[in-house]
């Protein structure tokens, strides 16, 4: 096992598309790091650069302490699991798992032993002689995993391996992957656009947007201390409410005026344009006129354990997450409460105000 490091990695494609921009990242030995970002953010490009399938335009890739920026994929000793598993359709599961060993000239007896071992470990013992087309979707993904595991590589790269599965299977395989990570104590870089996956699996999460790494941290860190407005909005479902406002001093103290709301803040150093962030679970409803302001109810989404209420507060959208079923009618006017200890303030450019 080895650490993986990226040093000011940039990638510009032939057509001029700039996929990565001076990206630096350290993945510790044995760590499971999740790269999270919307589609087109460059997550997969990062993986392909680490694997050697793409050559970066500038910057360096290190695996262990070895500089591998221009090393062909075969010599990097990393394994990759693809989105659509990429099992060779003309080979049986056994042949698929054996393939990387054969390519590395491992002795036949050893190959046979390791293939069976790995297959047993992933519950594929019964389907070793089946073709990929004969397997269930879950079995296929396990077989792809086995092909990666069998070699004992320096690092594992996962490119949205679970995105083609249904929800139940996905959570099952998620647990299996975590178990595998623990037992192998392997370095894993896991790319996904699904933040549930990122939150539940990642020891650390790296959030990518437009080819830049916005924040790297534990799930709690990125959720509770977002590095900028993008991360704040992206994390959580629904994401954080970010409202455009204006800081102002009044007789009652400092407030921020956002739409129809006037939120008192404890910040003393800022006046003028700024952005106010509140997570939906920190927004509450009360009778009109009682809270920090009034808002109109646009949509009510009862989800059972909670209810999402979409509000219009003087032209600014706001979502409140409330426990259980709530008796609110669409079109009525309600009062808004906010948890004042859980407010986030960003400047106009999106950087947090300490």
């Amino acid at each position: 096992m080895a650490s993986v490091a990226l040093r000011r990695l940039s990638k510009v494609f032939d057509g001029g598309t700039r996929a990565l921009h001076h990206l630096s990242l350290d993945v510790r030995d044995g760590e499971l790091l999740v790269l999270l970002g919307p589609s087109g953010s460059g997550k997969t490009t990062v993986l392909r650069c680490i694997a050697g399938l793409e050559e970066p335009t500038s910057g360096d890739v290190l695996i262990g302490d070895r500089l591998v920026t221009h090393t062909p994929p075969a010599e990097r000793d990393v394994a990759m699991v693809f989105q659509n598993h990429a099992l060779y359709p003309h080979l049986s599961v056994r042949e698929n798992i054996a393939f990387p060993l054969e390519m590395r000239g491992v002795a036949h007896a050893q190959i046979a032993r390791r293939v069976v071992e790995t297959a047993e470990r992933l519950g594929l013992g019964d389907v070793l002689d089946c073709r990929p087309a004969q397997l269930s979707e879950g079995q296929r993904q396990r077989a792809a995993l086995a092909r990666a595991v069998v070699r004992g590589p320096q690092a594992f790269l996962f490119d949205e391996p679970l995105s083609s599965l249904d929800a139940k299977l996905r959570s099952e395989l998620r647990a299996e992957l975590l178990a595998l990570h623990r037992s192998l104590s392997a370095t894993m870089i896991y790319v996904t656009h699904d933040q549930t996956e990122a939150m539940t699996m990642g020891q650390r999460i790296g959030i990518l947007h437009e080819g830049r790494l916005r924040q790297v941290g534990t799930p709690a860190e990125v959720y509770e201390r977002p590095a900028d407005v993008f991360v704040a909005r992206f994390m959580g479902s629904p994401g954080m409410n970010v409202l455009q406002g204006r800081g102002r001093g009044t007789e009652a103290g400092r407030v921020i005026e956002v739409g129809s709301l006037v939120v008192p803040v404890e910040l003393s150093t800022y006046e003028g344009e700024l952005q106010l962030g509140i997570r939906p679970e920190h927004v509450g409803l009360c009778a009109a006129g009682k809270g920090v302001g009034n808002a109109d109810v646009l949509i009510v989404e009862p989800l059972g354990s909670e209810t999402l209420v979409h509000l219009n507060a003087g032209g600014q959208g706001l979502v409140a997450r409330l426990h259980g079923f709530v008796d609110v009618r669409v079109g009525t006017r309600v009062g808004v409460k906010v948890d004042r200890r859980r407010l986030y303030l960003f400047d106009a450019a999106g950087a947090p105000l300490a």
Partner: protein
Amino acid sequence: MSWRGWAAAATAAAVVAATVTLSVARWAESRYERAFAFRIAATTAAYVAAVTPSPPTRRGSPPLPGYYLPQLLTQARALRTLPGWTSEVEVYHGTAPLVDATAPPLSPDDLERFESEGGRWRDGAALVPLKDREGREVVGAVAVRPRPMPRGPLPGGIGFALPAALLAVGAAAAIAFRQRSLRRGGYAAAALLFGVAAYADVRAAAQRSTDRWLNDTRLLLQEAATRLPAPRSRVAMADLAALIRDAELVPGEPAESAPRRVRIDGKRRAVASVLIGPGRWVELRTVPEEAYTTGWSAVLLACAFLGPFAILALRWAERTPRRQRRETAIAWGFLAPAGLHLAIFSLGPLLFALYLAVHRWTGGRASIDPPAVRPLVGLANFAAALRDPLTWVSLRNTALYSLYVPISVAIALAVAVALSRYRRGWGVRVLRTAFLLPYVASVVAVALVWQRILQAGSLGLGRSDWLSNPNTALLALMLLSLWAHVGGQMVVFLAGLQRIPQAYLDAARIDGASGWQRFWRITFPLLRPVTLFVLVTGIVGAFQVFTYVYVLTRGGPFPQYSTDVLVHRIYQTAWGSQEFGAASALSLLFLLLLLVLTLAQLRLLGRQVEHA
């Protein structure tokens, strides 16, 4: 539908079917009557030409063209009084009628049109040209109007038609009252009887046509025997035989003069005995028309079965929901053009080839049989084809020639893999076009260009003339085919390569496979269906090679037949030797060979790859 509705529908169907059948039968009969009229008109013209002298001249000067008019007039009038003659005849000198002077004359246009068409049907009479004694100039015409023969009111006479009518009425009633027992069977039986009756009528008309011709020709021959001009005292058989076409005249025994049917050398013939002088009998033989009426039986039965078919269609329509009925009708509507095309241009020729293969059909006229006659010879054509050493030579050549296909497939694959690496750039596009160009160019043009290249001393591909050297001719054809086909195969491979997901190759790279390993372990197996397709179509195409051979070598150099391939051999048998039966047999054997070949290839290479 109510019983009234069913009764009406059944009756209507029966009436329509019967009317159609009868009309077709009448039409067929009138065709036979016309055939008789044309035949006897031609015989009459020959007779008139033979018995009428040229205009008289002074001793020593050359004979004048045309006929001596008073004599022509006499001969023409005499035809009207021939006892037993069943037709009205008119002879025109120029445009003027000679027998019935008050009849309307022909127009000059009528005579002129004989240049382009032999004879023509005009006002219920067959009009054929009367040529001068040398048979060059048209000097007049002979018109024959057959007197109508008595005919019964119902087809096939009472014997068939009455039971048919009874059955039809019974069946219609049964359909109306929904009695299962008679509903379909009875109606079909009535249709069958009716069809058979109509066919009997047509056959009788054909027979009558032959008999009338025999009878009238017999009278003409007897007349000719007495009139043919001296100097000979006895008329020569050859002079008489010259009068008749599509028939034979052989010395015969005294016999009844009425036409009869006999079997001569296993073939049916219609004959009539003719007394051409004291104690001199000859036998007039021809092919009976009714021997070739089988086709009509199919047509007439099909017409007669329109009735039961209509009833079936009605019953289906009644049972089927409207939507499905509509869909079925629309489906048939869409299928009909393609089906018709298939039937006319594929199924029809195939059946005709099957028919030809077991018959002897030589293009020329070998006997008195009309040109359309093809005796059944069973498997003799096949046996002859297999015995012919040229068949085996051409098979060997074809097999050798097709060996270019695996080579061209390998080259095409290599080029496709090389080009697919570099999808961008104009260089690649130019190369791709260059490879594809010969494939889309006209085959004949390609062949002609190569003819130049391969000629000795031209563009310098060696000093020898490749195509006229028996050792290199086939090789030259293979090279040229390889050059022409690589492009097409390359394009198919390029498409196949694009269908292979990049992820497989990425996975293989990460798994540590080198370029060669990726090709042999991943790309090539995944391309297997494409390779199979290219190989099978290529070899099947190679077996069908014809154009290059036809344009460049015609199967030569001879006498080794170095490039004579199977299709060219079939072509030569058909159009060179005019043996269409043998050619059909050979092409059926060829079809069988292609089938076996294709099946064997599919079996050998046929494990398909599923892209998961």
